């Protein structure tokens, strides 16, 4: 009688953590839902695809390069990032998506008994990594769909090691303006690390939007996260990075896995940020046009929505969001349900090209009429 006694060898915080099961591949979903095409409006991907320079990198990647390890710490890419943002190479760490750098930062600064602070309705990975690392995640309710600076400051104690601010917030699209962010950083007074996650910063063109790359010159406890998945459309390559003061990065480097970013990802990222101005403008234009289609549509139906920053918007639907998901999938449209973000009966829609948005509108209208019958 041999029974593996996992409860004796697995820490309690791991046993209590709920595993995450990602979505099935598109081909499987299409087969299950009986559709021949699938509009992916669930992951805030840039439907324009990557900049032209990236195509050339991918096309030029030969099989002869496969046996060779990638550069272990993305030397060339960090060199380019340093030049682009007028910093030094040792201020950057590149990871296999920004999820990896989140993990590195929490490992570098937190031990069991410490806490991190973030919002209750934001990107879930800060909370997840903290919890499966045995670190308390203090989740502060959003205020008017935005991060609440006063409540977050009230939650800080001597065990607080990191505050995560998603700016703009995924999924609400709200952001702290420069004055709010500076007041917050001053109040934190370097008692802990402040991570400003700027995954969607390239989509924001408002003049009052704060740039964490500049703020860290004044506040050395600031770390910014950025990703190549959202604006630069390199999601399949999994590459993101952090930037901070050299001393902070030196600490994070100790817990950061090297060799985790593959060669095509490093080369594609380097190509993406070289001369990216026109590409960013074209993407912003696509997102703006999508908003101009969707907002009047939902206004006409009297359905509330949040249309702020980023390449997405949230809609408060008059039925269960998970039922709406299943019904839209039957029309070949995949949206993100927001119950998992603690916004029950909201959906998040990626803003993409007009023909796809029109398909979404038609499918949504049909589903709604089915429900109302």
């Amino acid at each position, binding site marked *: *009688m041999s029974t593996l006694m996992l409860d004796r060898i697995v820490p309690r915080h791991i046993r209590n953590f709920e595993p995450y099961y990602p979505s099935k591949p598109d081909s499987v979903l299409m087969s*299950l839902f009986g559709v021949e095409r699938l509009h992916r409006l669930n992951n805030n991907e840039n439907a324009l695809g990557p900049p032209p320079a990236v195509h050339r990198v991918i096309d030029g990647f030969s099989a002869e390069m496969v046996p060779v390890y990638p550069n272990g710490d993305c030397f060339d890419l960090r060199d380019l990032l340093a030049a682009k943002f007028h910093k030094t190479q040792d201020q950057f760490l590149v990871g296999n998506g920004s999820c990896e750098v989140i993990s590195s930062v929490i490992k570098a600064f937190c031990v069991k008994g410490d806490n991190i602070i973030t919002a209750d309705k934001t990107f879930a990975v800060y909370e997840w990594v903290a919890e499966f690392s045995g670190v308390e995640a203090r989740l502060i309710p959003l205020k008017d769909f935005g991060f609440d600076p006063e409540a977050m400051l009230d939650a800080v104690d001597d065990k607080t090691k990191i505050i995560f601010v998603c700016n703009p917030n995924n999924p609400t699209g709200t952001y702290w303006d420069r004055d709010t962010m500076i007041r917050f950083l001053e109040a934190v007074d370097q008692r802990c690390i402040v991570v400003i996650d700027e995954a969607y910063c390239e989509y924001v063109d408002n003049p009052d939007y704060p740039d964490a790359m500049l703020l860290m010159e004044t506040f050395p406890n600031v770390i910014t996260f950025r990703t190549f998945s959202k604006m630069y459309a390199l999601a399949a390559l999994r590459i993101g990075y952090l930037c901070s003061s050299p001393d902070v990065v030196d600490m994070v480097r100790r817990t950061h896995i090297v060799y985790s970013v593959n060669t095509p990802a490093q080369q594609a990222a380097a190509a993406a940020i070289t001369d990216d101005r026109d590409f960013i403008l074209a993407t912003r234009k696509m997102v703006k046009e999508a908003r101009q289609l969707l907002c009047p549509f939902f206004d006409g139906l009297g359905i509330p929505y949040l249309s702020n920053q980023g390449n997405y918007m949230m809609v408060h639907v008059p039925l269960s969001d998970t039922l709406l998901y299943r019904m839209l999938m039957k029309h070949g449209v995949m949206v993100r349900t927001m*119950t998992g973000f603690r916004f029950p009966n909201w959906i998040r829609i990626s803003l993409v090209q007009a023909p796809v948005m029109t398909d979404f509108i038609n499918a949504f209208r049909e589903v709604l009429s089915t429900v109302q019958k």
Partner: protein
Amino acid sequence: MTETGSRLSLDLKADICWIPLVQGVVETGAPVMGLDPGKTLRLALAAEEFILHLSRTAPGTRLILTLSREASSVSALFQFESSPEDLWAMNLTAASEISQDLDQGMAHMGLLLASRVADRFSIALNGRTLSVTLFQDIIYPEIEKAEVPSAPLRGILSAEACSDPADISHACALTMTLYPEPLYPKSFRTPGNIIDRISQGRFHAALVKDEAGTTAGMICWQIPSRRTVEFYGPYLFSKGDGIAQLLIDHLINQVARTEAITLYSRAAGPDLPLGNFEPLAALAYRQSNGQKETRTLWFRHLREDMGCPVWAHPVLVPFLKETYDRLFLIRTIREYKDQGGSRPARSLLGTRLGADKQEAFIRPMLDGTDIRENIQRHIQLLVNEKYVNLFFTMDLSIGWQAALGKDLTETGFEPAYVLPYAGESDKVIFHYVHPHA
């Protein structure tokens, strides 16, 4: 012997010489874990009879006995390697069979007694290891209904998790005053049970209060399986806009980032905000006076449905297709019926009997070639004892259970509803149709 907090373990061999030791451990340990003297004696008797049974049917088998405090019960878990066929005497119907052939049945008399003196039992087969758990529930005092406060609510309302015994008791008493019995669990009458389960994370409650601390409503939930959450309520104790929605939002937000996929209620009352849920089924529930009452079951998913395969006997396929189409659930239905391979001779059905003979829940625990007759024997016994609603639960992720579709429909059961993700995939709950109904 090892002891860790509220758990005691014995590692021994199935032999009658150990019976005094087992009795001693249960009689000493169970009161420390909160069981009263009468129930302790019953558990000691059940454990004794179980060892007696094993020492007769599988002498010398290595056996691990674990006595532990569960949320509101004390349990004796027996783990051993043996043929599951020997467990047939735990069937609710085994008594008559044993009494008809005492010579042959004596070896199983102990098992019969063990299962009868326990409040509940469960069986799991993992590889060749059988785990049989006998439960004795702790007795809690009953409470009276409470007077409903007439003062209006003041200020902003907010929902918060609650574990305070006084608050829980008061909210249970208010629920008993304002809602009919089918709409709340019978454990509301003994809130000590709920408080103990809350303290061990087995049950959850949230209250809405106003700024003066007046309780305006309650919602409760538990997690019966890895991917389902069952809730009770919302129960409203005051008039006020949005109390029910506050409770539902709180519930959903608490469970939204868990492993659970299906959130459901079998007893939601008139205060459920319907926009949040989908009707799962309308169940024609029989009452003891012969009248029927239709109860709507509600559910919602907590995340995107990725679909899953289910096994089904061909007779069940039309019902499943209709259900899955109506609910927009994506399932790959794989037909399965008895393949004619070798099966154990004797099956085992677990039966949970509801209060006041309103309902009995049967679930298949072990397959056997006699399972159809076993189902019939259970129906006959329960109908004779005047149980008015018989349910049978089938796990569609388990082939041999799915193959029972034909036997069930031919013995008078009808598929009533599908509970998504209640097992590894879905479960179908069958309802027995009385021939004279």
